[in-house]
């Protein structure tokens, strides 16, 4: 018997139709992955904006700091304002300095240690703010493919069960279920790839900013230590 190649039974194969044909587990996986993707993109956008702002703030502060303005004056303008980055480190150090001198510092070594501690704390708080939520990107980047794969495996499982029920192994019967199951992996990868790339870029950016702030803190600590020595020498 000659054989005609018969066309596949016309089933809707658009992405939307595939989503609606899927079982509830696969649907849940897809919705979860979509939400994760939305959230990770929100973090990416937010962090990009925040880092750009931070970079700009650092540049501005460095410009002002090294312009030769007196530190007292700078502290006065910054202390009643909400500060970020180097500004908050500077304010924390100056506050400690002021407190110690208003009450009359006994030991210059103890003052130095306190100022360093205050600056470290401010730096840590700033770094926390910079790096917060990057962990979510990392976990999405590593787990989203697995979640998608889980959806695919479940989808293929159910589609094979359906094939066994229909007692037909025609490719036209097999294909739609597998295509629908693979959609879950596709969404998983769609969420994971940007998350991984963004995580790598953002964490390196945050590291650079942190280094810059650390450098400033060290420098400012050196300046203050010189000042303390001068004051101690003056007193004596």
């Amino acid at each position: 018997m000659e054989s005609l190649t018969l066309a596949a039974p016309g089933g809707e194969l658009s992405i939307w139709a595939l989503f609606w044909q899927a079982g509830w587990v696969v649907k849940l996986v897809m919705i979860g992955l979509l939400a994760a993707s939305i959230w990770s993109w929100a973090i990416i956008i937010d962090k990009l904006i925040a880092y750009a702002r931070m970079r700009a703030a650092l540049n501005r502060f460095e410009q002002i700091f090294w312009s030769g303005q007196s530190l007292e004056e700078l502290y006065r303008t910054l202390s009643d304002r909400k500060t970020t980055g180097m500004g908050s480190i500077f304010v924390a150090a100056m506050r400690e300095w002021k407190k110690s001198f208003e009450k009359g510092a006994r030991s210059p070594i103890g003052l130095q240690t306190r100022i360093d501690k205050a600056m470290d704390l401010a730096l840590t708080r700033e770094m926390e703010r910079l790096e917060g939520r990057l962990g979510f990107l990392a976990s999405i980047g590593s787990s989203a493919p697995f979640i998608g794969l889980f959806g695919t495996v479940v989808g293929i499982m159910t589609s094979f069960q359906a094939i066994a029920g229909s007692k037909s192994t025609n490719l036209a019967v097999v294909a739609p279920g597998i295509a629908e199951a693979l959609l879950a992996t596709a969404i998983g990868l769609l969420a994971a790839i940007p998350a991984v790339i963004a995580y790598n870029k953002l964490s390196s950016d945050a590291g650079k900013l942190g280094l810059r702030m650390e450098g400033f803190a060290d420098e400012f600590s050196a300046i203050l230590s010189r000042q303390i020595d001068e004051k101690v020498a003056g007193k004596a």
Partner: protein
Amino acid sequence: MKTGLIASATLHAALIGFGLFSLSAPRAYEVADIEALPVDIVPVESITQIQEGDKKAPAAEKPAPTPTKRPDPVENAAKVGDNDVDLKPPPTPEAKPKPVETASTPPPSEKPAPKPAERPEPEPQEAKAEPVPVPATEVTPEPQPKQEVEPDPAAETIVAEDAEAESVKLPKTAPVPQARPQPPKAQTAKAPERKKAEEPARKQAAARPESEKKDDLLDDVAALLNKQKASGGGAKRSTEEAALGGERTTSGEKLSQSEMDALRGQIQRCWNVPAGALDAENLKVSVQFKLDPSGAVQGAPQIIAGGSGSTVERAAAESARRAILQCAPYNLPTEKYDAWADVIVHFDPSDMF
């Protein structure tokens, strides 16, 4: 954080919206259509299946043979020579002469001229016609066939004639020395023929009761005595205008190509080809089934080839059997029921992949 979330949500919404409109169903693969060639197979049925008619007449809706002619009751005058009176032409010698009749009946015309010419002719004709094959058998030394032939009353006359011919011809043929290898051949060819013709009749006669035997014998005798030659018969009466057609109506016994295609298509629609099999060559299945005149399947389809061995092959056979049963009432021309009462279908999935 809020700006990021809003931006991300709108981005995703836009992407999904774009995907819904532009990434709709992917285009189905172009599948090469096997029957797309514009070749028309002219079925042999259009030639063999001819309605009775006239070959040169124009085609008409209703087939009709050439109208027959009534014989003219008045004989045509045949004028021969310078006579003023109509005379029949002299009888042609090809008319079959029966020695008894010619002797008893008076001459057809008063003219005595043809008589002498006619009489001497038939005898030599007979003598010449008969002896040619006979001498070969008679020359053989084996007397057996002769003995068996003798009891038959019809054959007796022939034998008698043969004997006459033999007596005349024998001396002529015998001295030829080159004819030697021939006798055994002629003997083997001739003797069994006679035996064959008579033996079954004899056997039948022996098996039947006496009265029937007698009747049969009488029938045989009558059939043998009937010297009338079989004639071609008359014409089929027709008064209508001749239409295009052949000399006879030949009802096509075979299904035409298009009818076979229709049957094939009906079965194929229900055939779920076993997919995913590694060696599709071995999945050829032949299924035989019977149909009743309404086109329904009678009994269970028999798998006559393939379908044994591996599970895949059995699955293929089952799918073929299912296809036949599923599409059951087949729409086929009733007048050719004989052709499709018993159908064998070969399922071959090797082309499907």
